[in-house]
């Protein structure tokens, strides 16, 4: 056992931290977040030049990382910077689907993703699927060599700005079957796609996608027809490691801001951190953050294990990221008092993102239930 990061990963971490400190202030971030696409193509290109997108891909796919700990160390820093660029959408979700399912010509797109010149979004969740990964009603019926697709996709992360979409559809079976799901890679300009983009409360962008008699050629199918579920599960697992790691970075910013505030804000003639009521709440926050960090390490380290062990570790990390993320966000706001309620002070932007992470790819309750069901499968 070894709990130290490799030299390479520490260098990556330092590089991201430096870039964010120099170029990614909160005011600039909020301006970019409010722009039409919700992120900066220019900054995205700089991230690509630094090799940060490539860090999410294996050497085989043209990257230079791709392991659980690469994801973890990068996303922790992205969390500290409250970065809005589409690392999860394009780098993790789109990239993983292409890597696992794409043929050679489809995989050629990975080089463009790594270069930051092309973005991909995964349109999987649906208006009534909640967090259930196998719930897909969007249908594809054969049409000559290709298919005709109809259905709706919900809260697709960065789907409004993506150059390509990966859309999951049901080709056989019932709504909740794992078998019978296919994935298609299509340009965002495909006829019949209706995309309604919007900002999210935590400064990201997502969209609702309607597919109205969308005609897809045979070349758009990713992998074998009806066999996309394992890749969807794996892409989601990697996204959850990324989000849980991002949560650690966010928690640490909230923690540091709150500690400083407790040390400097005076009421009743003393620093409010002198009050035991606040000290003990802060001690709980500090202790629980260490728990969240440990569960992320466990998940990142177990990402290559067999399915049940991998998914249990991922669900564990997401349970703790959700529970502790909410604790840290709420306690940081409460201990600050009124100032934390303002847009300008800054804490709120980290707190909002921290709470919303629980709404991506499964919340505490969903992953608790999932952990139970995985435990039963293992028994």
């Amino acid at each position, binding site marked *: 056992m070894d709990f130290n990061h490799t030299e390479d990963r520490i260098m990556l971490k330092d590089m991201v931290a430096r870039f964010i400190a120099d170029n990614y202030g909160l005011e600039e971030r909020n301006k970019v977040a409010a722009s039409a696409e919700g992120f900066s193509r220019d900054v995205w290109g700089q991230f690509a030049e630094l090799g940060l997108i490539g860090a999410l891909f294996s050497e085989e796919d043209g990257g230079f990382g791709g392991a659980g700990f690469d994801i973890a160390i990068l996303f922790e820093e992205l969390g500290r910077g409250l970065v809005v660029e589409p690392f999860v959408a394009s780098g993790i979700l789109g990239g993983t689907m292409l890597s696992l399912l794409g043929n050679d010509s489809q995989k050629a797109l990975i080089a463009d993703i790594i270069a930051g010149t092309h973005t991909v979004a995964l349109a999987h969740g649906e208006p009534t699927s909640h967090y259930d990964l196998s719930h897909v009603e969007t249908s594809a019926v054969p049409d000559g060599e290709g298919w005709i697709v109809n259905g709706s996709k919900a809260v697709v992360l960065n789907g409004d700005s993506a150059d390509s979409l990966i859309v999951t559809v049901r080709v056989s079976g019932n709504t909740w079957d794992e078998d019978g799901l296919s994935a298609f890679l299509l340009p965002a300009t495909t006829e019949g796609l209706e995309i309604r983009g919007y900002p999210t409360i935590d400064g990201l962008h997502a969209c609702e996608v309607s597919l109205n008699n969308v005609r897809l050629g045979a070349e758009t199918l990713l992998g074998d027809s009806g066999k996309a579920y394992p890749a969807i599960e794996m892409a989601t697992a990697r996204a959850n490691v990324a989000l849980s790691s991002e949560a650690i970075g966010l928690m640490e910013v909230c923690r540091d801001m709150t500690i400083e505030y407790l040390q400097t804000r005076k009421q009743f003639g003393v620093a409010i951190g002198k009050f035991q009521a606040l*000290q003990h709440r802060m001690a709980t926050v500090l202790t629980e953050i260490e728990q969240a960090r440990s569960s992320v390490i466990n998940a990142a380290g177990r990402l290559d294990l067999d399915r049940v062990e991998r998914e249990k570790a991922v669900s564990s990390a997401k349970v703790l990221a959700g529970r502790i993320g909410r604790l840290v966000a709420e306690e940081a706001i409460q201990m600050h008092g009124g100032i934390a309620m303002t847009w300008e002070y800054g804490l709120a932007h980290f707190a909002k993102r921290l709470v919303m992470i629980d709404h991506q790819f499964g919340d505490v309750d969903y992953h608790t239930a999932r952990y*139970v069901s995985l435990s039963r499968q293992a028994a």
Partner: protein
Amino acid sequence: MDLNYSEEELAFRDEVREFLASELPSSLAEKVKTGKRLVKEDMESWHAIMNKRGWLAESWPVEYGGTGWNAVQQQIFDDESCAAGAPRTVPFGLKMLAPVLMKYGSEEQKRTYLPRILDGSDWWCQGYSEPGAGSDLASLKTNAVRDGDHYVVNGQKTWTTLGQYANMIFCLVRTSNEGKRQEGISFLLIDMKTPGITVRPIVLLEGSREVNEVFFDDVRVPVGNLVGEENKGWTYAKYLLTHERTNIANVGANKVSLAHLKYIAENQKVRGRPLIEDPIFAARLAQIEIDLDAMATTNLRLLSSPDSVANAGPMSSMLKIKGTEIRQALNDLTRRALGPYAMPFVSEALETGYNEEPIGPDYAAPVSQEYFNNRKITIYGGSNEIQRSIITKMMMGL
């Protein structure tokens, strides 16, 4: 980062397993696993077996007869010992006094007492708390007045765990009332057979007798039994409280407790189905398991971190809080898993040799008393509230 055991660590684990398989008496393991009360002879026999193997002092440096194991090795040993049903070694001499003697004791004290801890000649108990000095330990009043070559000790200690078995006690005593309260405390080693010492048992809420009151009435203690300098005892006391961090989270015992809870939940039936399939129960269980899995990593991560010594205070406090909260959550859920059978309490059923038919399931007898007994763990060793104050004080400078 690598969460897997190395070849050496796996070999070490095998060595530990072999030792436990061949040396841990099955009757003793059975007592531990079924929650029977251990008697003095049980603890002494395991102590002797461990000493014979040279593994008794897992956290001591090699020069004093310790194992020199690193954090991962100590955790492997703890996991395996707990899983096999080995009793915990009695910590007062081994894990509390010994580190203090090694750091602050005289050469003669080290030479005299460390070997006697290992070979079991001395059974130490701890004289810290007093009726008026609990969380506010520095307010202690038991005083020691110098009289020639002796200190004369008067006062009372309390919560003295297993004091009924001990022949020696290490005590914090007041040697000065000048200046700050913390600067008038000394650390004394006292022979329990000295005239003037009275030990009186305290019966705990579930009927057990593990703690005592110890009274000192003109007890004469040779000045050679002072550890370090007079009036510097508070420094030594704090060192003692933060030093023994390895097992503070009790990861191994928590894992065993979780496994036992699962076993019970698989055997308890609700509407003909195992309780473990009940969704609300299963969710509660999963959340504890998830927390424990993270704590096991927190434990190893913090203990094997290079700056762990500098961070000893807040780290050991975090581990104490988390470890005890998880244990209490496990005890609580185990009690609830039994339903009405949490209620029957035949105290004799916890003694070795009890041969009556159990009331209800055979695993039920010790569950509720363990739940009640373990309310102590968030109180002792510095209550969890004291730990929270330590964390903020050390991490926020407040």
